[in-house]
């Protein structure tokens, strides 16, 4: 009798444990809701100061003032600018609600379901019946904007931009590269994009080194490859530490030390004559690989690099097994924080990319295009009457006050003007959830925006070591002359041909480059490597990219 009661009790206990753990799945934390709504009301009151005047007559091409006086409501589908995680939806996010007030336009935001594949969600959106008024997506990556215009999915904005988005129009006219990136090869403007104010913001990864070890060994920060040789050997001898990295971060890695442009994956770059080239078929790359192989064989490079990810390298760094690496500023901050927490006394700093001869300029650093691949387009589902509102709303980020709002939030609340420069308040800088989360709540340019990301904003939000590192990396470079632009687009036939061959080529290059690194393949076979690439269709790839690039230049 007693035994079966015990059994029953255990059974009930098990079931209740399972039921409780089911409840734990899904659903965001709602605890911070209360705090948010009170914060929100404060925003609303403070925000009234921006209701300066009513908008003047919305005549064509005229610069109107915000907030607009309109009853129109816009719907936007976006894969970015999602409300900060503690909010259940955008109606609680100070940035989104504040934007609504400032522009005077009610906007309904739609995001793909959390955890779903965004590309799939985007494709489903296009295949569905009801398109939103505005779609915000990485159209520059897809490169098919002209086709979408032809198929009647999105609107051609060429006539409309000068009329209804004069600030953005002016911005494009003043910058040739941006202008070319935001229109199709046929010359049709299609999107309002996201731009960086300065090249400083486009780079976020590079070589780093243990400064305290350099000092202890009385060595200087290495500039040339010979100096790197010395430093790495010294690290190995004295500390048994290696040059470790995640292979994904080595783009372009140490290539600049040989005037090469890539390391492991198939890398496209522009030569100084503006010709498209592949990094891996240049003799400079062969020399670069030879050096890396030499380092690997001498044990100067970590033998685990093929399987390491960022976390793996981070653990090794904490255990003093790493003397130098190539990594991102985010990781660098992590390593510095780890060292502080454990009290290891490790000092990590960013060091310049290596050069072939002392004093020369670095041609290849890790950097993105100044134009983000994301841009906002107006779909054909947006009716004629709403077009003006839609475009003026999109134009807001390019006005003076819009620029300040998108980047810094509310004046007085999230930033104050000091000496004419906006400075974040403690609400952001000392936020308990971290600067990044605070920025997600109140500002919109941390990742990608509809407007221009301010240099000052990025400098303020980064830790000082990261700022110092990026300063070092960007100091002595002309990489922009060699960067293949993000706004280039291929025609459908080109894209088909390209995709047939590209994956095979990339697989081959990735394999062979790592095999060269670990010494499994001898570099004597380099000529066969190049020949095989030609046989696989490399020339065709280069041709396609060249033609597409030439069309881009002619826009």
């Amino acid at each position, binding site marked *: 009798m007693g035994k079966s009661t015990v059994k029953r009790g255990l059974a009930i206990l098990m079931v209740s444990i399972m039921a409780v753990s089911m409840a734990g799945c899904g659903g965001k934390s709602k605890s911070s809701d209360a705090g948010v709504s009170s914060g929100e009301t404060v925003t609303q009151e403070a925000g009234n100061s921006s209701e300066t005047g009513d908008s003047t007559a919305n005549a064509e091409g005229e610069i109107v003032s915000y907030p607009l006086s309109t009853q129109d409501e816009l719907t936007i589908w976006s894969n970015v600018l999602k409300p900060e995680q503690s909010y259940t939806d955008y109606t609680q996010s100070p940035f989104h609600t504040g934007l609504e007030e400032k522009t005077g336009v009610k906007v309904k935001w739609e995001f793909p379901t959390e955890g779903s594949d965004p*590309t799939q969600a985007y*494709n*489903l959106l*296009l*295949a569905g019946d009801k398109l939103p008024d505005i779609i915000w997506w990485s159209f520059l990556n897809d490169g098919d904007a002209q086709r*979408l215009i032809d*198929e009647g*999915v999105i609107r051609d904005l060429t006539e409309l931009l000068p009329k209804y988005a004069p600030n953005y129009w002016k911005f494009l006219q003043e910058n040739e590269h941006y202008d070319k990136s935001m229109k199709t090869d046929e010359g049709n403007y299609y999107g309002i994009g996201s731009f960086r104010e300065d090249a400083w913001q486009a780079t976020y990864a590079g070589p780093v080194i243990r400064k305290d070890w350099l000092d202890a060994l009385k060595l200087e920060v290495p500039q040339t490859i010979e100096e790197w040789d010395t430093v790495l050997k010294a690290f190995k001898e004295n500390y048994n530490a290696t040059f470790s990295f995640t*292979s994904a971060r080595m783009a372009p890695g140490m290539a600049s030390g040989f005037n090469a442009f890539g390391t*492991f994956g198939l890398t496209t770059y522009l030569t100084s004559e503006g010709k498209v080239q592949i990094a891996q078929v240049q003799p400079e790359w062969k020399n670069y690989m030879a050096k890396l192989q030499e380092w690997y064989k001498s044990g100067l490079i*970590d*033998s*685990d690099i*093929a*399987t390491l990810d960022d976390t*793996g390298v981070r653990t090794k760094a904490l255990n003093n*097994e790493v003397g130098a690496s190539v990594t991102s500023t985010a990781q660098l901050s992590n390593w510095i924080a780890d060292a502080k927490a454990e009290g290891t006394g490790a000092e990590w700093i960013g060091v310049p990319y290596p050069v072939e001869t002392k004093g020369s300029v670095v041609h290849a650093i890790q950097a993105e295009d100044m134009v983000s691949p994301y841009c906002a387009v107006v779909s054909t589902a947006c009716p004629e009457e709403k077009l003006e509102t839609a475009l003026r709303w999109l134009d807001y980020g390019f006005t003076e006050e819009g620029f300040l709002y998108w980047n810094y939030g509310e004046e007085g609340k999230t930033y104050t003007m000091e000496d004419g420069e906006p400075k974040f308040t403690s609400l952001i800088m000392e936020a308990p959830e971290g600067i990044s989360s605070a920025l997600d709540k109140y500002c919109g340019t941390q990742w990608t925006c509809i407007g221009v990301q301010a240099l000052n904003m990025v400098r303020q939000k980064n830790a000082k070591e990261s700022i110092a590192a990026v300063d070092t990396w960007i100091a002595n470079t002309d990489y922009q002359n060699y960067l293949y632009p993000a706004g280039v687009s291929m025609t459908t036939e080109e*894209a*088909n041909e390209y*995709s*047939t061959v*590209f*994956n*095979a080529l*990339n*697989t*081959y290059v*990735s*394999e062979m*480059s*790592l*095999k060269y690194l*670990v010494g*499994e393949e001898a570099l004597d076979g380099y000529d066969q490597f190049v020949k095989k690439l030609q046989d*696989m269709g490399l020339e065709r790839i280069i041709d396609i990219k060249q033609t597409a690039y030439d069309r881009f230049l002619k826009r």
Partner: protein
Amino acid sequence: MKVMLKKDKKAAVRPSKGSFRARAVRDWKMNRYKYLIVLPVLIYLAVFCYKPMYGVVIAFQNYRVRLGISGSEWVGLDQFKAFFNDIYFWRLLRNTFSISGLSILFGFPMPILLALLLNEVRVKWFKKTVQTISYMPYFISMVVVCGLISSFCRTDGVLNDIITFFGGERRNLLSEKGLFYPIYVISGIWQSIGWDSIIYLAALSGIDQEQYEAAKVDGAGRIRQIVSITLPGLMPTITILLILRLGSILSVGYEKILLLYQPLTYETADVISTYVYRKGILESNFSYSTAVGLFNSLVNICFLLAANRLGKKISETGLF
């Protein structure tokens, strides 16, 4: 007596007299609850498995999401040709078959062995403990398992410690293409041996105990008993499970490979699904991946039918 009962039983299930309509009505009246129970499952199969099957036609098109199936252009076998003509096609096929084949060759008998061994254990608490411990790894997420494997295979990991203890050299085990298969298969066995053995243990309990006693009387030792009684008793279960296993020979679970492979091991580890996955990152080419999927399914069906045939020949048990 026995014969009459049998006839009655038959009448209760399948009415054999009268016109089709009369029989159908009586069938419904007698078995309606059975039909109702099966109905949700049938609806599920119809809606989620059969209805979407027409979508396989996009393998013969150049499918564009916006244009839909009716609007996309037809390209016949072009997608298949693109796949077969890919430089790496033979390597991918070879790797997929190898990984699948080795998993079956080494991974299939192991749960049977475990079940047989556990069956011989008389100490009940020991048997239960071993069972529970052996099927715990099944519940560990694949990502966690691969994280563990990665850590163990590092140059400074546990496995290398063991290797150096026996006088070997330290090296990252996951970077060696020759070691990929052993690592994959052995970790797979570790993870699923307990869970897969459950069904065999269940089948074992269905074997008539009288046969064992008779065998013991005849003087058979333990091994003889296993060979002559247990294994034949398990044959139907083994055959069916093997047929099912062979029916997914080309569908090598790509998550594990994706987590464990990297360019240095592409030569042995790159399978059809991982290659197509990498291709898919570049373009959302639905048609191409559907074509590859169709190819996979066709090969799987061939193997399934062949295995079924073989199974019927050898042990008179087959799936259909």
